[in-house]
């Protein structure tokens, strides 16, 4: 396979965003593999995320987080330019209960992309990929990256702050 420059840039950036920020860091998720439209993650077992105190099984919510993250990462790598991919919806089927004290592996794949929507599928398993614990389908929106770029957000904020810059900018908008 040819060397993919975009993916070579994405990998460390997404790994950093996942493993050192917010909820991904709190859960201790590790990014195992990242290809174009494909993501592999692992969630280690921990006592803090137990959802069933009777059996010690992790809460379903962690599997939601894990699959949402994996599908989101897979959707992001499909785009030509870096931008956000907000989730539209997510459906999860729990096929068998997870076992305690074992890590959970997750795989997510983009199986179709249209002009506005990215369709993803995800799978979570523990010992054997052939007997998964959960399966998910998630759809993502494609959002134009220019509307969320730092430059346009900063310009919008500046326009609100500086009263003298309001008029010329507005006139310019009206001329268009």
């Amino acid at each position, binding site marked *: 396979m040819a060397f993919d420059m975009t993916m070579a840039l994405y990998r460390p950036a997404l790994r950093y*965003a996942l493993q050192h*920020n*917010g*909820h*991904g*860091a*709190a859960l201790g998720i590790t990014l195992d593999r990242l290809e174009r439209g494909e993501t592999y993650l692992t969630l280690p077992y921990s*006592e*803090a*995320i*137990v*959802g*069933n*105190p*009777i*059996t010690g099984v*992790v*809460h*379903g*919510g*962690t599997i*939601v*987080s*894990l*699959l*949402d*993250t994996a599908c*989101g990462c897979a959707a992001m790598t499909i785009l030509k330019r870096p931008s*956000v991919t*907000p*989730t*539209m*919806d*997510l*459906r*999860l*089927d*729990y096929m068998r*209960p997870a076992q305690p004290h074992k890590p959970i592996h997750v795989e997510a794949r983009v199986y179709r992309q249209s002009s506005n929507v990215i369709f993803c599928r995800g799978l979570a398993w523990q010992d054997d990929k052939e007997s998964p614990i959960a399966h998910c389908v998630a759809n993502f929106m494609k959002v134009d990256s220019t509307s969320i770029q730092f430059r346009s957000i900063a310009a919008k904020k500046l326009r609100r702050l500086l009263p003298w810059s309001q008029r010329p900018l507005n006139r310019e908008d009206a001329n268009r």
Partner: protein
Amino acid sequence: MTAENSSNPVLLDWQERVVAARLERDPQSIMDLIPYASFIGAETKTEDNRVLYWLDKRPSNIGNPSLPAIHGGVIGGFLELSATIEAIYSLDIIDMPKVVDFSLDYLRPGRFKTIYARCQVLRQGKNLLNVSATAWQDDEQIPIATARCHFLI
């Protein structure tokens, strides 16, 4: 199965606490039994015979640090947790209900603020339970996410 259940001290302790929580109208004491609830910071209380759930903002719940927005998975996990608590608290279930499927629609981004949620048991069958949950931030009429959850009881 019954003999096995009655000999399990963890299950007996769980059932005792759940019954006590229902009597005292205190769903928070069920929430306290679940470690995941304190991991994300979910809390609950009763308010005019209905149960209100909320999730205070926390840096460890952020999904996108540049906006910042709450992680979509946290919203999902919180709604699933709320639906579970609603099922245990409002119905006469002795064991932990098993989630069969969970469907979540994101309507608006979850900003870095407290998220509130309310749940409703739509149908209780012999084996199956359908619970819906809605989350909002500023106004209950402007939901940020809705979820539907099936439980096996």
